[in-house]
């Protein structure tokens, strides 16, 4: 499996990196996911099409990423429905900037699932509501 490239599982999975900290949200269930510092960088790599094997052996803090550790992390991402295998997709190169960030991490690979906002988020059937003419077209400071 370490040869595999992965893709974000569906359009319901949205994510963003806040100062290197990844937050992933499943809009269909309202569950959201938080990561350790190294987990955030590995999510960023995998969700952008970097092959799993390109991450094995990379420096993460004071150690290197082991295959078994990465496999178990990816298994969780698959189980949570955040990623799917994308066998025929060409792998993307991992950027030097991301590798440098990964090297600067201090926590082991970890992803946590949270459902405390789920009932509040799923009540908003986003895809059924056309953009209102008013909000959320709030003027942005540009």
């Amino acid at each position: 499996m370490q040869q595999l490239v992965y893709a974000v599982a569906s359009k319901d999975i949205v994510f963003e990196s806040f100062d290197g900290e990844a937050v992933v949200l499943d809009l269909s269930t309202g569950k959201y996911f938080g990561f350790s510092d190294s987990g955030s960088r590995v999510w960023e790599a995998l969700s952008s099409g970097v092959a799993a094997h390109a991450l094995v052996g990379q420096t993460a803090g004071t150690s290197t990423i082991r295959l078994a550790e990465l496999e178990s992390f990816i298994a969780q991402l698959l189980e949570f429905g955040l990623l799917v295998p994308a066998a025929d997709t060409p792998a993307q190169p991992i950027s030097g900037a991301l590798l440098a960030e990964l090297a600067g991490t201090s926590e082991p690979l970890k992803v946590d699932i949270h459902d405390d906002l789920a009932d509040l988020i799923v009540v908003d059937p986003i895809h059924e509501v056309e953009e209102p003419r008013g909000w959320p077209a709030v003027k942005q400071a540009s």
Partner: protein
Amino acid sequence: MSGYSVVIPAFNAATTIAETLRSVVAQSIKPDDIVVVDDGSTDDMAAVINALDLKVRLLRQENAGPGSATTRGIAALSTPFIATLDADDLWLPTKIEEQLAHFRRFAQVAGVFTHWRNFRHDRPDAPDAGAVPGWSRSTMMIRREVFDAVGPIVDPPGGRGEMIDWIARAREAGLALDMLDEALTLRRIRPGSLSYGRDATRDRGYLEVARLAMQRRARNRTESS
């Protein structure tokens, strides 16, 4: 005096505000005060409101977002209960009456929400449409002091989700928020709305709200350890 007042944050809602306000004044228990907070509208909403000849206070602010406008409106009110409503949604006539009755029955309840169902902007209401729990501004009624305890409604940078954030903060403070099973609020859906277009700025707001929830949790862990 009924003891409640209403806050309607509004941005360019000239086409819907009249119907929304009529659903407020049609309540079986009348509000003491109605405040519309114009969040920097560029349409003729103010003229529409004035032409209605209803007892409505119109406050104005520079465009800052629905959370900010709601907070501004609540700050201008002093009744024991406050109900909020989006400028395009509607209340059914007994909505407030049912909520006030719930508050009377359960003295410890901090806020009461209702189920809601969608209605199409261009079609009559369909009472058989599915109702869902409306954890939203348009169904919310709270005790005034709850707002002071939880604090302002904060608009996530560049996105929606301000009510999710506020309700989550209220829950984390241990406040009891109840949901009435009856659909007493109607949510307006615009024509041609089944386009499945994703709104990236709204998604970003939700992600920000999730991040804030995780940060609060981490902070609480640190404080309690």
